[in-house]
């Protein structure tokens, strides 16, 4: 029982973290058809901004609960700022290029942002552990879990719901769906596709930064963290199906639970299972588990 609860909780917590990272990546791909390598940098910028802001805030002697608002604020401001700059400054002039070219462009952005991060924050690690410990912990079947990690499950569920609601129950979401299905026809019908792209990219960047900001309290924020997570995020969205928010959720759950089972039952396979699952999915359903196969337009 103890083992089963530990495996399930670990799997779901890890999946929540993965989903928060992958949500922005899959959203951007779904709308813009850009496999955004720079998403890892958004994550890193969010983590650095969150850790810095929490550090300044707590050093000022303010109430510790406000640190959570700082994490949220840092993610929104830094993600929006970087998102606007990149979309307006670079991507906008590259729209319409081949998907492979866009991968190279965003990879270049990733490399540039990695150095920008070093220029701004240096190479020393940043810590913002107070929000992580402040919530305390909960014991389940004799195993303690940090309440902060449990809260991540609710954050991920909220993001998932908001994305679903925003895409399916709002006017802007329906316009966005029209762009996703056929951007040329959407443009003919008077939808401002460029504006839709800008909004989507900024939301995706904010989600990436939010993932980093929410992760910062539990880790040592240091150079290279963005590069590490982007590979995992790709595995998640490939399993679920590129461009599908529901797919990202299922991909995150599959990866989270498979990894957790491996850690508890056969630790040597911990890394293998993630990419093993991805390989299996690609072999039998190359478009991912939840993506709808579409005919290529000529």
């Amino acid at each position, binding site marked *: 029982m103890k083992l089963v609860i530990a495996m399930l909780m670990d799997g779901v917590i890890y999946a929540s973290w993965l989903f928060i990272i992958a949500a922005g990546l899959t959203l951007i791909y779904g709308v813009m058809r850009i496999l955004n390598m720079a998403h890892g940098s958004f994550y890193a910028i969010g983590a650095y901004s969150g850790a810095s802001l929490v550090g300044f805030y707590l050093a000022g002697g303010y109430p510790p609960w406000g640190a959570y608002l700082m994490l949220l604020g840092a993610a929104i401001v830094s993600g929006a700022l970087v998102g606007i700059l990149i979309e307006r400054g670079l991507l906008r002039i590259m729209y319409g290029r081949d998907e492979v070219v866009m991968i190279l462009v965003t990879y270049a952005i990733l490399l540039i942002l990695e150095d920008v991060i070093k220029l701004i924050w240096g190479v020393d690690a940043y810590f913002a552990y107070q929000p992580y410990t402040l919530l305390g*912990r909960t014991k389940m079947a004799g195993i303690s879990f940090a309440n902060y990690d449990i809260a991540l499950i609710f954050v991920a569920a909220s993001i998932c719901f908001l994305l679903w609601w925003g895409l399916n129950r709002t006017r802007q979401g329906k316009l966005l769906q029209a762009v996703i299905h056929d951007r040329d026809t959407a443009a003919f019908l008077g939808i401002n596709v460029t504006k839709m792209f800008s909004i989507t990219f900024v939301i995706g960047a904010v989600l990436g930064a939010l993932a980093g900001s929410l992760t910062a309290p539990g880790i040592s924020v240091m150079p290279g963290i963005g590069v590490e997570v982007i590979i995992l995020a790709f595995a998640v969205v490939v399993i679920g199906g590129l461009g599908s928010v529901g797919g990202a959720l299922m991909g995150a759950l599959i990866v989270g639970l498979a990894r957790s089972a491996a850690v508890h039952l056969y630790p040597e396979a*911990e890394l293998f299972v993630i990419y093993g699952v991805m390989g299996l999915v690609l072999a039998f359903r190359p478009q991912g588990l939840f993506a709808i196969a579409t005919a290529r337009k000529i």
Partner: protein
Amino acid sequence: MITSFVKKSTLAGLLVASAVAQPVLAADEYKLGLVTFLSGGAAGPFGVPAKNAADLVLETLNAGGLPAPYNMKGINGRTIKPVYVDEAGGATKQASELRNLVERQGVDSVVGYISSGDCLAVPAVAEELKTLTVLFDCGTPRVFEDSSYQYVFRTGPTATMDNVAASHYIKEMFPKLDSVSGINQNYSFGHESWADFNGSLNKLIPNVEVTTKQFPKIYAGQYGAEISALMVNSANVIHSSFWGGDMEAFLLQGSARGLFEDQTAVLTTGESAMYRLEGQIPEGTILGGRGPFGIYAPDNALNRWFREAYIARFETAPTYPAYKMVQGIFGLKLATEKAAEKVKGQPTTEDVVSAFENLVYEGPGGTVSMNMGNGHQASMEMVYGRYSHKSGEPSVTDVRRYPAACVNPPEGMSSIEWIEKGMPGAKCN
């Protein structure tokens, strides 16, 4: 026409001459390649402290500001000019970077390398280029156990002693020990560390149960599932050779979940985090510092100078990578100057190599004996203690020092073989 030709020829000649002349150093300049992590996850905890230490020591050496036997200016009177290279990028890149340092930059020698993977990759290039290369920090014992080199030296001790000494320490601190678990990074350093620890512990305390051994990916950052596994498979002691951000994340996440409340962590590189995570390391956590460095360094004149100067300049205490960098530079300097005593003028690389072999010298961490790996590998004493923050400042208690001959294999025997045979010849008293 002729005048124009002469002008062009003269100009071309001057350009060629200046291009040829560029790499030639001033006779009194010693160009030293320094390779350390300046980016990536290892930069903050290791690379930058090592670079800071190098900057400080080289400036002081160039000014002739150190006490004897390091009082001669620079290296053998030649002003040291550092050429830094970022160690990030992997072993293949480092092999190319070493070639660049020698062939393009024209360095006299190289001090560097923190990663075990890099330390296994660069010696072959150093040998080919006949360039004196001092490995200052990496831990894998395989460098000189699997091969022998003429131009390569390692002035830092191997990771074997970290883990053998940890076993001795646990045996003393936990007389009723019956179980251990481990969490180490999934690459050579992590696997070798666990093998050395588990092997030596089994010889010192037979029949200790291993409840679980975890090998997460390096730089994973998230250890929720591993922490749960360590809780489900509870043990008296958790062994970890995690370093840098991975160790810090593991400490933060484990502490928040109460992992260390009824299990004691042995962090073989924990000393490097004791100031960075001040107040966040659980009381009683066993900390190693990869040798007698940092808070475990002896109270000698060199250590007093180094520690004070480092804190004054960088506003933080030097951790073990900083000590090991100084140790590497000191070894190179002494060997060069020792070689110079026997020859007229500047010694050749081969002269320095001969002088470096079996050299015994003092550093801020105490005595360094180049008595392993055919005189190319250093051995030192190893120290462990338990973290305490009761005084309001980070400190260590229950400090135990283990002589080099207690925690290192004898010359000619590999670490694995030595541990498997029950550590014969170990002199621990």
